[in-house]
């Protein structure tokens, strides 16, 4: 009996701690006179942390920049960055923690599609404004949900940019597709096929697995069929392997690839030189490559927060979302509430998305703020935007 009393005592102490620990009482969660709490989640441990840090850090850099230049109506943005290890179970925990424990005002996060899909229900149930960080699955924000917004080009956008580009290439009659077996590649491939000129014939659809060591079989198989173009729905490392082996085994036709390899300079390094990425066209959601004068401002903002990191195009995923969040916070006014914030999000029009190619526009009927992209290629040893349609290369 005594044990029971002691236990209930403990429980009540715990209860007090829980309540006392949460943010000071205010009209709206995550808001204090001097700060706005934004929750973030992404893969910060495990294999995918390779992408998680640069992406989340891009957003953090923008928030830091905003804080350094005065904040928003005197409030500084405080980021709570949680790890989801690209694992749905952990992502659900992270999001519940952000909602229940951290009491954040809004969430800006999610790089792996599966984690976002898993956490989606909790976010909606909590009526939490949510801006997707880098997951590109169309299903996340379409059909429209009041609380979910994306600024990154959805997978379907990727696919249709590629399809448009292929249609504009001269004398393309046959293509071969190489893709991963996952929803990421499927979304892009489906949109691509739907938008593809019906006169162009797909002669082969090959699979390449994640983490493969080589792609000889694929290269040999495709070479036999001799298509005019190869379309690759593959991640950066696998694209490098595929390209390397394709070139090695004499498959010299042009490659059209997704935004995942828009950092062509990086790709050329991995695949073994500039020669390998000649005739490689990658879809891109950015206006200009890192290092170009147009992106210099954003490079600087990133370096200000993470001086030791190598700037990757991945970081711009995070930036465009952060710009949307900041813009909506500003337009929601000093008496910030979630309702006002959502209203501001839904009326975003032609927002300059910084390094992004598009202008972000959101309406109550469309929460995918950015559906336009361009195509990049290596010209004269430099990565340049060549536009969504083929332009005869100047010799």
């Amino acid at each position: 009996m005594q044990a029971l009393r002691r236990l209930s005592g403990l429980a009540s102490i715990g209860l007090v701690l829980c309540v006392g620990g949460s943010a000071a009482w205010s009209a709206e969660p995550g808001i204090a006179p001097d700060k706005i709490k934004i929750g973030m989640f992404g893969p910060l441990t495990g294999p995918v942390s390779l992408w998680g840090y640069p992406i989340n850090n891009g957003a953090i850099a923008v928030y830091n920049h905003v804080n350094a230049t005065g904040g928003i109506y005197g409030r500084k943005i405080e980021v709570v960055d949680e790890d989801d290890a690209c694992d749905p179970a952990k992502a659900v925990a992270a999001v519940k923690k952000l909602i229940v424990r951290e009491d954040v005002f809004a969430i800006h996060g999610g790089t792996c599609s599966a984690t976002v899909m898993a956490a989606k229900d909790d976010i909606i149930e909590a009526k939490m404004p949510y801006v997707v960080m880098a997951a590109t699955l169309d299903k996340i924000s379409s059909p429209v949900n009041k609380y979910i917004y994306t600024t990154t080009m959805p997978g379907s956008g990727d696919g249709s940019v590629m399809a448009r580009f292929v249609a504009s290439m001269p004398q393309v009659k046959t293509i071969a597709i190489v893709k991963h077996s996952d929803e990421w590649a499927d979304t892009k491939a489906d949109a691509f096929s739907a938008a593809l000129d019906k006169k162009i014939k797909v002669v082969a659809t090959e699979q390449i697995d994640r983490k493969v060591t080589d792609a000889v079989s694929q290269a040999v198989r495709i070479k036999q069929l001799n298509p005019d173009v190869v379309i690759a729905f593959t991640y950066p490392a696998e694209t490098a392997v595929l390209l390397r082996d394709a070139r090695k085994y004499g498959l010299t036709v042009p490659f059209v690839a997704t935004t995942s390899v828009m950092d062509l300079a990086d790709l050329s390094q991995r695949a073994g030189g500039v020669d390998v990425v000649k005739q490689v066209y990658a879809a891109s959601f950015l206006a200009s490559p890192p290092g170009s004068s147009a992106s210099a401002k954003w490079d600087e903002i990133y370096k200000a927060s993470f001086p030791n990191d190598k700037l990757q195009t991945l970081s711009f995923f995070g930036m465009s979302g952060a710009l949307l969040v900041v813009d909506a916070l500003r337009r929601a006014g000093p008496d910030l509430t979630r309702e006002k914030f959502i209203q501001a999000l839904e009326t975003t029009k032609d927002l300059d998305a910084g390094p992004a190619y598009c202008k972000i526009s959101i309406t109550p009927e469309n929460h995918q703020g950015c559906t336009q992209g361009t195509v990049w290629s290596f010209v004269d040893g430099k990565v340049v935007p060549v536009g969504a349609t083929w332009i005869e290369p100047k010799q």
Partner: protein
Amino acid sequence: MSELLTLIAAGLEVGSLYALMALGLVLIYRTQSIVNFAHGELLMAGAFVGYVAFQPMSWPFPVALVLAVLSSTLLGVAVERVVIRPLVNHPHATLAMATVGVSVAVRGAARLPFGSDILTFPPIISAAPVFIGSLVISAQTVLTIVLAVSISVAVFLLIWKTRLGREIRATQQNYLGAKVVGINTGKIYSSSWAVASAIGGAAGVLAAPLTLLYPDMGATFLLKGFAAAVLGGFGNPLGAIVGGIAIGILEKLVGAYFSTYLIEISPYVIIIVVVFVRPQGLFGRGQIVRV
């Protein structure tokens, strides 16, 4: 026809790496009945050390190779001394778990310096590939195969022609017998791990130009190594080599002539088929039922 030869050459290249993995796994399994789940990390460590020496330091390739082999060896011996030795008398499951722990820890450690990027190891010989009709063979392929074969031959000579090799075999066959004839079994344990880890490290450097470098790169090779070892009859070094090469070639052929969707799964199908049809593997002698 020449596609077939091209595929076989490419299959030989990866296959010889699988073979090296399997050889290391079998050596350790035979000596201590340990299924070494940290073997992929020995490969990874070798690859990264080789990379650092060859790329940022731009030391010559042989130096990089030696450094990689040395550091993997050191890591392997350390694992044996610190983790495995205290557990010698424990059940297989416990030992395997310990190696799983090591594997996770090493991967985590590698992520600190190398976790933020996928690195590329340039081809060691940058000569253009040779085209004979449509048969394509690159200098890198030839180098990989030649080095892998030399390493295997060296290991076989060590096992069959030296006193150390004989003592290793003796310890594998009868632990107590080895003690009785005055073999320092502790030294044999360390040596087995040293040899196996050295092979793993060498495989890492050879694999590096073929694949890309990231902390999780070992897993793929580990699983293929397992498949090769089972195909060869887990416990037979020659079987491991043949198994590895067979799986390497088979993967390429399955991919090119059946479907690229089946490439990664084919080694596992082989394991299951082998266990159903010929559990002693290609080279086992039927001693598979433990009594």
